[in-house]
C-alpha cells in the first residue's frame, strides 16, 4: 500500500512571466492506493497531477507531509531500501516515443533490465529471452514481430505496449500511468486501457491513473477511487461512479460537463456548468481557490478556504462551502443503441 498524508510541494518561481513567484503544486494532499486498488486523478493541465505521480515514483521531492510505502516513510529509508521500494512503482509516460531509446531494438530494451533481474535472482540467459517474449505477449504484442524492431517501426499503440512490458520486467507492485493514452488514437486507447485493467485483475497490480479522460478512468478502475485536483488541492474524492454521477463540487461539475456528448447516442446532463474564466494561477486568493471561476460562488467563498469534508455517501469527500449534487454527465439515450 502506498499512502501520502498532508503532502505539499511548492516549486520556486523561475522569473520571466512568473516573476520569482512560488508555485504551489500540491497542497496537503492525502491519498491512499491500496494493493491491487486503483486511484484515478483528474484535473486541468497544471493542477499538480503529474507532480503527484512523480513524487509517488520517487522522482520528485516533497516539502512536507509524508509518503508511506507499506507503512515505511520514504524520507527515512536508506538509499538501498529506497531503490528497492521505488523500483516496484513504475511510471508510464504520456509519450511512448520519447520513453524508448530510439537506437535500441525492443529486444535490447527489454533485455537490459531483465539481465539485471536474472543476475540478481540467479536465473539463466535463456530465462531473460523467455521472459521478454512472455511479457510482450502479456501486453498483446507478437514477440517475433516486435523484438527485432526499433521504436520508430512500431505504431504509437504498440510503443506504449512496449513501455508497459518494460515496466513489468521488474515485477512492479504499482504502476503510475501519467496520461498514458493521451497521445494514442481513440480507437486504440481501449486496447491499452484493457491491458491496465487486466494487469490489475491478473497480477494484482495497483494503479494510479492520471488522466483528463474520465471515461478512461472509469474503464480501468470502475471499483476504484477518483480524486479531483485543482491547483494542487484535492477538492473532491470518492468512488468513481459516485463522483461521476453525483458530483457535488462545482469544479468537478465543470470538468465533467466539458466531456463531449455523443449527440444521437447521448443527451447532455441537465445541470452542466461552465467555468466563468480560464485558469489564472498568478493570484493566490485567501478563500476558495476556485472562487474567481466558480459559477456558484457566493460572498463567503472569498473569505475562507473550505476543508475536505464528508459529503454524505460513504467515502465521498468534498471541499466546498456550498456543495450541491448536480447531474452533468451525458445520459445515454434509451432508444438508441451503438450497435447495428
Amino acid at each position, binding site marked *: 500500500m502506498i499512502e501520502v498524508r498532508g503532502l505539499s510541494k511548492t516549486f520556486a518561481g523561475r522569473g520571466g512571466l512568473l516573476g520569482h513567484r512560488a508555485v504551489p503544486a500540491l497542497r496537503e494532499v492525502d491519498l491512499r492506493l491500496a494493493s491491487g486498488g486503483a486511484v484515478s486523478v483528474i484535473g486541468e493541465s497544471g493542477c499538480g497531477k503529474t507532480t503527484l505521480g512523480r513524487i509517488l515514483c520517487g522522482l520528485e521531492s516533497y516539502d512536507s507531509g509524508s509518503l508511506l510505502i507499506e507503512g515505511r516513510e520514504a524520507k527515512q529509508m536508506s538509499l538501498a531500501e529506497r531503490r528497492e521500494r521505488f523500483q516496484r512503482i513504475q511510471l508510464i509516460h504520456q509519450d511512448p516515443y520519447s520513453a524508448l531509446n530510439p537506437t535500441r531494438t525492443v529486444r535490447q530494451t527489454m533485455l537490459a533490465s531483465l539481465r539485471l533481474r536474472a543476475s540478481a535472482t540467479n536465473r539463466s540467459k535463456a530465462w531473460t529471452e523467455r521472459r521478454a517474449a512472455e511479457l510482450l505477449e502479456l501486453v498483446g504484442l507478437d514477440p517475433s514481430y516486435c523484438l527485432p524492431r526499433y521504436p520508430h517501426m512500431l505504431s504509437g499503440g504498440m510503443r506504449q505496449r512496449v513501455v508497459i512490458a518494460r515496466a513489468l520486467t521488474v515485477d512492479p507492485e504499482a504502476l503510475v500511468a501519467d496520461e498514458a493514452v493521451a497521445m494514442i488514437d481513440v480507437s486504440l486507447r481501449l*486496447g491499452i486501457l484493457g491491458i491496465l485493467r487486466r494487469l490489475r485483475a491478473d497480477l494484482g497490480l495497483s494503479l494510479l491513473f492520471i488522466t483528463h479522460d474520465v471515461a478512461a478512468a472509469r474503464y480501468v478502475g470502475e471499483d476504484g477511487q477518483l480524486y479531483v485536483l485543482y491547483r494542487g488541492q484535492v477538492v473532491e474524492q470518492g468512488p468513481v461512479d459516485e463522483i461521476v454521477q453525483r458530483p457535488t463540487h462545482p469544479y468537478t461539475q465543470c470538468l465533467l460537463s466539458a466531456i463531449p456528448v455523443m449527440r444521437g447516442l447521448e443527451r447532455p446532463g441537465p445541470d452542466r456548468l461552465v467555468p466563468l474564466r*480560464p485558469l489564472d494561477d498568478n493570484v493566490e486568493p485567501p478563500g476558495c481557490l476556485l472562487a474567481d471561476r466558480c459559477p456558484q460562488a457566493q460572498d463567503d467563498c472569498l473569505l475562507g478556504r473550505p476543508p475536505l469534508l464528508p459529503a454524505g455517501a460513504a467515502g465521498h469527500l468534498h471541499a466546498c462551502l456550498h456543495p450541491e449534487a448536480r447531474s452533468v454527465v451525458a445520459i445515454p439515450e434509451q432508444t438508441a443503441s451503438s*450497435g447495428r
Partner: protein
Amino acid sequence: MRRRPSRAAHLGSGAGDTEEFEGLRVRGLTIVYGTEAGELAAVRQVDLDLQAGTITGLVGESGSGKSTLALAMLNAVPSPGRITAGSVTMSGIGDITRLRGRALREVRGGVLGYVFQASQNSLNPLKRVGAQLLDLARSHGVPQPRLILGEAQRLCERMGLDATRVLSSYQHELSGGMRQRVGIVFALVLNAKVLILDEPTTALDMLSQAAVLQVVREIHAERRLATVVITHDIAVVAEMADRVVVTYAGRIVESGATGDVLRHAAHPYTRALLRSIPRISGDISAAEPLPGRPPDLASIPTVGCVFRARCPLALPICSEVDPATVSVGPGHATACHLAAGPLAVPERTEEVAG
C-alpha cells in the same frame, strides 16, 4: 480583405446542387506518395462537400490520410506526395489544385484558413504574435497591414482572450488553449470562408477543449463558414459537427448527418469505432477494442474493401470488388458490400460527399 462575390441565396437545397453551392468541393481526389515501393495512394477517389454554414467532422485513425487530405485542400501536399487526380473547387475561386505561385499563396491563409495540429509548432517562437500577424498581412498583399491588427484584436476578444496581452506575447507565454485560439485568429483574420482545423484539441485538457470547441462553433455560426474538423476522436465530432465523414485508409467509408451516423452507423468500421470508446455513463464493459492494426500506406489493398482485414463481417466479395457507395438514408451513404443489400439503392459516387 479577401473578396468574393456577395451571396444572397441561402442554401436550403442539398449538397448536390452545383449552381448554388457555396464552399469547398472535393471531387475524385487521389493523392499518392512516391516511395521506394512505388507510388502508394494515401487518399483515393475522395468526394467531399464542405458547405458554408455546415461543420463537417472528418474522422480517421493515424495513417488514414486525413491530414494529407486536409493539406490537399490547400494544394499543399508535401513532397513526395502529389495530387494525381481530382479537383478541389472553391466557389468564387475555382480549382485550387491548378493554382500556382502567388495566386496559390493568396488563397492559403486568405479564403482558406488552416489551423495546425500543434499550434505551438506553427507559431514562430522568436516573434511576438502581433508581428507574425503583420507578416501574414504583408505576404497576402494587404494594402494597410496594420489594419489587420484591429481585426485580430476584435477576434481575440471575441474568443475570450486579452487581445493586448496576446498580441504582444511570444508563443511560449501562452497556454495550449490560448495558442490554439491564436491559431484560429490567424486562420480567420483575412476573412476566411473555409476553416480547416487539424486535430484542434488533441493536446488540450478537457476544459480547454470544451472552450475551444465552443469558440469554433460560435465563430462558425457568426461568419457562416464552411468548417471542417479533422480528428481521430469521434466524440469531438459527435459533439460539434453537423455532418460526419468517416475515413479509413484514404477512402471515405461513411458519411451522413451526425445523429444518423451515430444512431444508425452503416459501415462495420464506424460501428467498431463507436464501440471502442469508453463512455462516461452506462455499462462501461460494453466498450470493445477495435481488433487488428490501423493500416499503413504499404499494406492498403488496392482492390476490394480497405477495411476487410479487420472486418468481422467480411465476405469473399470484399477482397475482390471495390464496394460501391450506396445510400442508406437521406444524405447518409456508405461504401460497404453488406449495406448494398436488397433495401439499399445504388447511387452515383457523388452522394457520398460530405
